[in-house]
């Protein structure tokens, strides 16, 4: 997993609420057995017509936002299925950070496992960031994970919360499985104890 420390980039405004994982990556692209290559189909049905032409109005098709690295989104981003293809597609497109008032749980979790930072901000702040994102490609936002701040193109800075364990893993690009396997002895003893307490399980 790539480390996430600071990021300065273009933010795309997506004010729609309840952007679900079926919108982020429709199911016909879930048949892959790899993690990479999904970026071209990110938001596929919003981004392309049925015969594969780009829809010019869609934000990521607009010249200013084609290389966006941040998305400012409406409430409840990433609701719906558990498909990790959603963060894979975002990452493959180049998105490293999503900011919203709220995220669906599983999606939120999945982001951290893939080097994407999801940031929850109150509505007032999302409104400011949305307005900043609407300025287009010349407006670059900065996300500083160590300092836990987001700074707009005109220098307004806002703090955000992030779980310390997740922050540590993201900043260092750490693989959870490796960390958990260090606790193998604790898992062994839990299993031994559970085998007597709940032998049917």
């Amino acid at each position, binding site marked *: 997993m790539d480390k996430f420390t600071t990021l300065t980039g273009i933010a795309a405004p997506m*004010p*729609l*609420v*309840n952007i*679900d994982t*079926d*919108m982020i990556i*429709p*199911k*016909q692209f*879930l*048949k*892959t*057995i*790899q*993690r990479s290559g999904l970026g071209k189909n990110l938001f596929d*049905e919003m981004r392309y017509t*049925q015969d594969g032409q780009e829809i010019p109005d869609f934000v990521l098709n607009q010249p200013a936002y084609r290389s966006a690295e941040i998305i400012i989104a*409406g*409430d*409840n981003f990433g*609701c*719906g*299925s*558990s*498909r*990790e293809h959603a*963060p894979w597609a975002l990452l493959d497109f180049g998105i490293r950070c999503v900011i919203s008032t*709220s*995220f*669906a*749980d*599983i999606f939120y*979790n*999945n982001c951290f*496992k*893939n080097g994407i930072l999801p940031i929850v901000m109150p509505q007032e702040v999302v409104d400011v960031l949305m307005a900043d994102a609407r300025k287009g490609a010349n407006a670059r936002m900065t996300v500083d994970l160590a300092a836990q701040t987001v700074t707009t193109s005109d220098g307004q800075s806002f703090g955000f919360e992030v*779980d*310390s*364990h997740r922050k540590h893993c993201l900043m260092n690009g750490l693989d*959870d*499985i490796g960390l*958990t*396997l260090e*606790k*193998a002895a*604790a*898992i062994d003893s*839990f*299993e031994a104890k*559970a085998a007597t*307490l*709940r*032998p*049917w*399980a």
Partner: protein
Amino acid sequence: MTAPRTLYDKIWDDHVVHQAEDGTCLLYIDRHLVHEVTSPQAFEGLRMTGRKVRAPEKTIAVPDHNVPTTLDRANAATMTEDSRVQVAALDKNARDFGINYYPVSDVRQGIVHIVGPEQGWTLPGMTVVCGDSHTATHGAFGSLAHGIGTSEVEHVLATQTLIQRKGKNMKVEITGSLRPGVTAKDITLSVIGATGTAGGTGYVIEYCGQAIRELSMEGRMTVCNMAIEGGARAGLIAPDEKTFAYCMGRPHAPKGAKWEAAVAYWKTLFSDEGAHWDKVVTLRGEDIAPVVTWGTSPEDVLPITGTVPAPTDFTGGKVDAAARSLDYMGLTPGMKLTDIAIDTVFIGSCTNGRIEDLRAAAEILKGRKIKVKRAMVVPGSGLVRAQAEEEGLAQIFIDAGFEWRLAGCSMCLAMNPDQLQPGERCAATSNRNFEGRQGRGGRTHLMSPAMAAAAAITGHLTDVRELMTETA
């Protein structure tokens, strides 16, 4: 004396392997269900790092999302190349890593959330995970069941644990009894209508109250299944005699002395008097009507007696979202829901693909013919299908004009060839009405199996209670 705990607290406490200073826990996982779509990258990860599956005996795999449900599916030509590759990958991974497996050719194959309980893998008090958000279904047994992403699938395969922070406790109580024609699906949709799709975010929901107790295990699974649609991490229901009766004698349920010990433990699984709830929602069972969804979010729920809302009925970001939904759904504000004409009916999915669901639909369809262009029943498992044939339900469906399919997810997410065409309108018993969910441009209205059957008969959304009085 320990402080009073909720059911969620109790199951959580019994599964904590390790707790870090910041509260992050390593939670032991008793059952890991696996399907073909969200697992290939996880197994690949294990191979690349030379890791093994830590507890293959607690890991159960079944292909369901991609598989064709037509009767000729044994013929490889019924699948697209990429679907075939994905199912073949699961076959190989199950074999290579030695996990329990129900291949497409096995009569026990079906939707992972139907197979787990049916085979007795899912039992009260367990932690259950699956790379699928509807894992909440298993909560009907009083087990803590989470949907997880593929990285977490790999984590559970390798370590049999999940890194989690504890969620908050939410109680959803349904008091009193349901009125005739009202089902578990109407409960779960009405709850989402009341709380919104993010109302449960960060919570684990416990459903309780008389109306929940009165539900069968099938109905309870329907309720818990859609907890995720309300944003909750999991939904659960305290086990009782109905739960024990359902589990008894299942292939992987304990037997003899182990069974006795298990039941004694299961009887301790309830929320204590005085336990703390972070949020409480109460609905009166008598107030719940048969409902349908009108929009493209499961929170867009209305009683069938209602009319299509206008964007101006909403506030905030929902105004634009509702306008977009109405446009996508091709509906005009003020229109009666019962005037909405239906092209297609889909009965199935992990929400409503169990035997009781098929019985409820067949009851309405008996001796009648469909008026829609096409209608299909996709049983949730091969065993549900077999039982429905034995009970004569299959013939009722066929006589009414339904296609009688093999088990799988089918048109719930339309990854296999069962898809809606653009503009095609479907009455569906599944759980998601998102844009494009059942096929690009397809329009989905969610409802109970009885309501879907009623729509099939009349060709438009229909209050099933009218058809019930006709037969009574």
